[in-house]
């Protein structure tokens, strides 16, 4: 482990240690309660009727036969949801269009927009009856041609997914009158761009551009220019726990929802919008979550079970099947990308240009702006231009997936960087080092970087034993790639109660997905000097703790860790005050060190934390520490991956021989969980690189909606993923924390593609690089030195 600037934290007792997680026993013994584990007397079970078509207009829905089935209690459709976006004058209030999209994704409105799109919900006395009732709902469809990728979406006569909603909605930086001219001048071939029957409509939901310097001059100054095109397919987050939600709509109008999510406050607020009641009338109780990776930040079932409960007056639960998860929840994007980078003979980048066209799915909102901001972020680019297109297709609405938008972009950007370094005969890590962004570097998007650890991470990679080792052998190769992720922050609330037995109850609002309970508790232990096991963390429901933004953006250890630090400081100050009252001295004369209160000069005045905690109720009452913050300074994350592969030229099968993740983590609060995130991100990226993809037929039907056919890597497919923690402390956090969860998924696809080129001399430009694709590339190129797809 490198300990850059570590002196500030040398005296920490608990931060940096590896204690057992508080929730470990419950989880390994099966006692932890996940979304589907909730049950109530008189509870009804729900099922969702889903569209068999990728694109169709709903002409009518008749559920009278379903309601007549014994045991069926209620059916809901989109007509049961309020429609605040409709106005008398215009039909649609554009300010409320996002509510319409959210509502119509939960239950389809005028059209179904992807295979698996929810159409109706049924509640019955058991799940079998509910399932049977689905067959009794008669839906009349007018089938429309599906639009399945970005290039098809912009073709003449491709059809329009949302009539009347576009062109290019006026949402912030997307200004329609300027978009049109910008898009027509963009590098995406829009000559065949379909604009609907009256030239008003489009499947392009958004456009984004950022520039720095003079891109034309930058390419003129280059000695070598590489330009490539890329295509990537849709992949799913692949969390193990399917979505599940249970609701009780009480007669007083108050609603309680149990679900597993990445943010129960977000679930509350989104549900409130869709069902049309105040958020304060809804309480969401968070269950344990079996993985999310960004995909559990959106409501799917919650409004449906709420409305079914309202209709029946009974608790209602719906749990998705795996097929429903694949077909009805957000995957990440498919994309078309074009990247062009120029450099001088001595390896300095003079210009970098990218076009990213990302699938949004059925509703606007791909993370193309994030991909656009990440693609060249590790580098100091003097002249740059990045354009992003958000394009509607008849696939499930994309949801966030670990560093949303960045992995696909890095696949394109980092393989062009690699090709440039090869053409210039410069070591690929040295090439990155020469061009690395550092503190003060102005990004293409405008702001300058604060302290980041790209230099240190690349340096650590260059001297890593893996990089210095020999990977020799036929058809073997090594690849490297870098990745960048912003890291997020947001509002977070924490309460700490001093208990009479000397323990501390910690209530936070961040669902724990990756071991953050213990990481947050470690902040409290460090401030108070008490054992980590004496801090008892729990996740409060939406009525029990202040607003806390979602567990996403690699933000929890940063924002909620900081909130816990602040709450513990508040508790500490109050307890010092109480000790001073008991001792009849000034508070400024009392200290807390290593869990013991003492007077600065009178050594007879000492008591440990537990002793004072036991006296609180009798000396003025309990003490509660609190913090509600929204901190800035999250600090960006950088990761460099090194991978050795072997390609079987007979079958196209690729074997990962060795894999190392080198990452700047700021300060590793709990190194075990930091390493776990680094390994987990790499494994997900390897799956994305080699196997994972939604396979659609020409009608837009997913042909592999099970884990049997949607191939995710297992431990049997992989070697041990080695990790190397670099600690360039984040000056924006009390203990130097940077988010760690997302950036490790950014480099794997490019690193593996670069390793394939090293092994067999083929530049891959599609994902996944599965055995049949790789074999076809080997056959097509009949040797080395070509680009597959050219």
């Amino acid at each position, binding site marked *: 482990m490198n300990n850059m600037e570590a002196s500030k934290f040398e005296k920490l007792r608990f931060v940096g240690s590896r204690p057992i997680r508080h929730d470990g026993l419950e989880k390994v013994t099966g006692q932890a309660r996940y979304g589907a584990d909730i049950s109530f007397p008189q509870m009804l079970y729900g099922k969702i009727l889903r569209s068999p078509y990728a694109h169709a207009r709903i002409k009518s829905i008749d559920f009278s036969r379903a309601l007549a089935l014994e045991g069926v209690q209620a059916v809901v459709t989109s007509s049961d949801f309020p429609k605040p976006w409709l106005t008398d004058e215009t039909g649609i209030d554009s300010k409320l269009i996002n509510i319409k999209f959210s509502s119509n994704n939960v239950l389809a409105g005028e059209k179904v927009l992807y295979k698996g799109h929810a159409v109706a919900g049924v509640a019955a006395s058991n799940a079998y009856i509910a399932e049977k009732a689905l067959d009794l709902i008669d839906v009349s469809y007018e089938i429309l041609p599906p639009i399945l990728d970005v290039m098809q979406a912009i073709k003449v006569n491709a059809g329009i997914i949302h009539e009347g909603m576009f062109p290019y909605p006026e949402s*912030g930086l997307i*200004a329609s009158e300027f978009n049109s001219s910008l898009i027509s001048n963009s590098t995406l071939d829009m000559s065949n761009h379909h604009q609907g029957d009256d030239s008003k409509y489009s499947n392009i939901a958004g456009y984004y551009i950022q520039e720095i310097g003079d891109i034309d001059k930058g390419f003129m100054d280059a000695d070598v220019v590489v330009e490539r095109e890329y295509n990537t397919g849709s992949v799913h987050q692949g969390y193990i726990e399917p979505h599940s939600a249970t609701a009780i709509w009480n007669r007083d109008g108050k609603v309680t929802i149990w679900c597993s999510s990445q943010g129960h406050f977000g679930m509350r607020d989104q549900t409130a919008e869709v069902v049309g009641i105040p958020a304060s009338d809804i309480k969401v109780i968070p269950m344990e979550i079996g993985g999310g990776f960004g995909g559990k930040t959106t409501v799917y079932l919650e409004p449906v079970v709420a409305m079914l409960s309202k209709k029946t007056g009974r608790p209602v639960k719906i749990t998705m099947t795996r097929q429903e998860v694949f077909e009805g929840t957000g995957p990440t994007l498919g994309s078309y990308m074009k990247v062009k980078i120029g450099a001088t003979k001595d390896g300095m980048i003079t210009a970098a240009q990218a076009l990213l066209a990302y699938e949004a799915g059925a509703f606007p909102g791909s*993370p193309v702006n994030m991909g656009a901001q990440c693609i060249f972020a590790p580098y100091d680019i003097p002249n740059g231009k990045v354009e992003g297109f958000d394009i509607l297709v008849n696939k499930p609405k994309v949801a966030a997936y670990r560093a949303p938008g960045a992995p696909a972009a890095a696949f394109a950007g980092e393989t062009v960087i690699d090709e440039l370094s090869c053409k210039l005969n410069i070591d690929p890590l040295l090439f990155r080092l020469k061009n690395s962004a550092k503190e003060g570097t102005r990004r293409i998007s405008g702001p300058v970087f604060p302290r980041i650890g790209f230099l240190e991470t690349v340096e650590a990679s260059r001297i890593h034993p893996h990089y210095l080792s020999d990977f020799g052998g036929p058809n073997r190769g090594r690849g490297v790639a870098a990745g960048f992720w912003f890291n*997020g922050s947001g509002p977070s609330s924490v309460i700490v109660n001093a208990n009479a037995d000397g323990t501390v109850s910690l209530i936070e609002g961040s669902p724990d997905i990756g071991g953050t309970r213990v990481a947050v508790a470690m902040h409290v232990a460090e401030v108070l000097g008490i054992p980590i096991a004496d801090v008892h963390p729990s996740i409060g429901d939406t009525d029990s703790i202040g607003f806390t933004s979602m567990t996403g953006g690699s933000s929890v250890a940063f924002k909620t860790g900081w909130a816990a630090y602040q709450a513990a400081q508040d508790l500490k100050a109050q307890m010092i005050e109480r000790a001073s009252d008991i001792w009849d001295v000034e508070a400024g004369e009392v200290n807390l060190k290593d869990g013991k209160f003492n007077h600065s000069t009178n050594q007879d005045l000492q008591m440990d934390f537990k002793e004072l905690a036991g006296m609180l109720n009798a000396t003025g009452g309990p003490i509660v520490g609190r913090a509600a913050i929204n*901190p*800035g*300074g999250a600090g960006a994350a950088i990761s460099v991956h090194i991978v050795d592969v072997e390609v079987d030229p007979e079958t196209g099968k690729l074997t990962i021989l060795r894999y190392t993740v080198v990452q700047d983590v700021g300060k590793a609060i709990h190194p075990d969980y930091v390493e776990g995130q680094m390994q987990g991100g790499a494994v997900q990226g390897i799956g994305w690189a080699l196997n994972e993809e939604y396979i659609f037929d020409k009608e837009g039907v997913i042909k592999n909606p099970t884990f049997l056919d949607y191939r995710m890597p297992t431990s049997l497919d992989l070697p041990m993923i080695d990790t190397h923690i670099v600690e360039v402390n984040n000056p924006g956090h009390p203990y130097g924390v940077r988010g760690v969860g997302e950036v490790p998924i950014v480099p794997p696809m490019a690193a593996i593609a670069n390793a394939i080129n090293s092994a067999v001399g083929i530049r891959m430009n599609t994902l996944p690089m599965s055995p049949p694709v790789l074999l076809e590339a080997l056959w097509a190129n009949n040797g080395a030195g070509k680009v597959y797809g050219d």
Partner: protein
Amino acid sequence: MARVFIPTMLRALADGNAELKIEASNVREAVDLLDVKFPGFKLQILEDGKLRSNIVVAVDGETSRLGLLEKLHTDSEVHFIPAIGGGAQ
């Protein structure tokens, strides 16, 4: 005066300027002054008087948690950039 960087998307609205110097005490005042100079600018940044949900303001390289209330200094840099979400674990 604070340096306000105009997003590429809005430069046509701001007479092609990529950067402007604005005498403003906070971001809201800067947006108001830009709207006076370039009518319609505010509409692209604000909705119902608040920053649009898909936009964040970065001041001096740091995403502002205060948004329009963020104070500006004479050497401050202001950027309007798309908001970032995410999804680890």
